[in-house]
């Protein structure tokens, strides 16, 4: 510990992290922390669970740091691990499919209602579909970066986003009709 104070380049930080310096690894992911948190929140819709998921993903990433190929971006690699961690968390709670909004949602404004409806609609999608929508429309990622994050081709990334939008749209429209 403490070596991080003297390590400035990414290569130095990577080496220090590989040598067991947890603070160095934290510094490596610092620029990507907000994006990671947003991915986790977009998938889990719970602040505490999102924070825990990112922390757990950071431990896993640190453990697998040797797998990060030289020249590959840290961000897509780390976000992929965050996405996988969120899948694990989601699978442990069946109510992600069923959970209803709290009672005060009954007296919400139109904007809040739309936000609640969208979150509910996202929860009804599968993990993979939710992930590509969050990456594309919440993190504003280009298809190339989505492809790198998911380990697929840019064309496949575009197809997957389009497929997810096609699934999301009727759910949102149905909710609108039901309100």
């Amino acid at each position: 510990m403490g070596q991080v104070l003297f390590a400035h380049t990414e290569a130095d930080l990577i080496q220090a992290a590989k040598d067991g310096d947890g603070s160095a690894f934290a510094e490596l992911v610092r620029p990507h922390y907000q994006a990671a948190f947003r991915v986790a929140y977009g998938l889990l819709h719970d602040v505490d669970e999102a924070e825990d998921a990112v922390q757990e993903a950071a431990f896993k990433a640190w453990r697998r740091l040797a797998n990060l190929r030289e020249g590959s971006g840290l961000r897509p690699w780390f976000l992929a691990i965050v996405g996988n961690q969120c899948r694990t968390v989601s699978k442990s709670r069946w109510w992600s499919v069923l959970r209803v909004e709290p009672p005060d949602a009954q007296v919400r404004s139109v904007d809040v209602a739309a936000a609640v409806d969208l979150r509910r609609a996202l929860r009804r999608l599968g993990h993979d579909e939710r992930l590509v929508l969050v990456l594309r429309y919440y993190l504003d990622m280009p298809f190339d970066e989505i492809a790198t994050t998911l380990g697929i081709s840019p064309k496949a990334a575009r197809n997957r986003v389009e497929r997810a939008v096609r699934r999301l749209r009727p759910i949102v429209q149905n909710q609108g009709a039901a309100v």
Partner: protein
Amino acid sequence: MDDRALFDRMHDALDIEPPAGAFERMRVALAKSPATPHGWAVFRMKGSKMGFRLAAGLTLLVLMGAIVAAYLAAHNATSSRVPAGSGQTIAAYQNLVNLDDQNANATWSDPCDTATHTGCQADATRALVALHQWLDDLNRSEPPARFLVVDAQLRQHISGSIAGLNALFAASQANDSNAMDRAFLLAAAGRAWTDAVVPGIVSSKQVTAAEYANSVRAQSIFLTSCADCQVLTGQSQIDCSQNQDFCQTLLDGTELQVAGLQVAVAAFAAPDSFSAKDTRLQQDLARADSALISMRASLLTLNQAGFDAGRITLRTALAAVSLDAAAI
């Protein structure tokens, strides 16, 4: 909803900053951990909520494993099969399904998602081994009464995924990208169903009459207002040979709603007072679900007659589901 509108709505619904001190808490946790990045993260996570949950989960898993081992030892000593609905405990069945689902998930990496996918055969084979293992495990023991109906559907979906993966690999060998797309959707549909329904099985609990009724009513609202379901069960001709994407989208939307209700009845076990109605609802849902599986399979081979036959079965099954849910 165009791209711009979706972008705005996502930001309106989700825009949030990490809680104050979140990064620092992570940094401290990382810094405090042993000076080697190898080993069990669960022990380094001491003090965090996730660490506690993981430790508790691991303990539970070990205990469940011991229960299953004891059960299997006793089971194998007498017979290779258990009478339907009686022998296997609910917890043992939940554990079996959960472990096989985790195994299937760990081996699934969107196999052959594109014609250029390298490692397609290896990925598909790994996923197939896990799915066959799951099916074998289910075939070796019969489910407790609570899960009889959903278990049969689980087997059908696993078989559907296996058929999809086999077709996927064959299409990739033939370099037929259209057939690959159709096969991938068949394989992925089975996976999407298990993703949705298995957590309901694993977390299933006995509930009160009011809780059961509320859960069924809440989910059936989505089904009755589902636009895709209405088109799919309507009388208009749908030519899938001309518009495969449209047919796949209709199936996507309908499967989502049917699975939602299947999750509800799997997760919230009906009390005795609703037993007969619950059985009827589950059976009609299973008919609808089976019709959807057969329609997916028909799209794989571009079998329009099979797709149309599935629509007729689906129409009667969903009409029955609506009546069943209204009676609860």
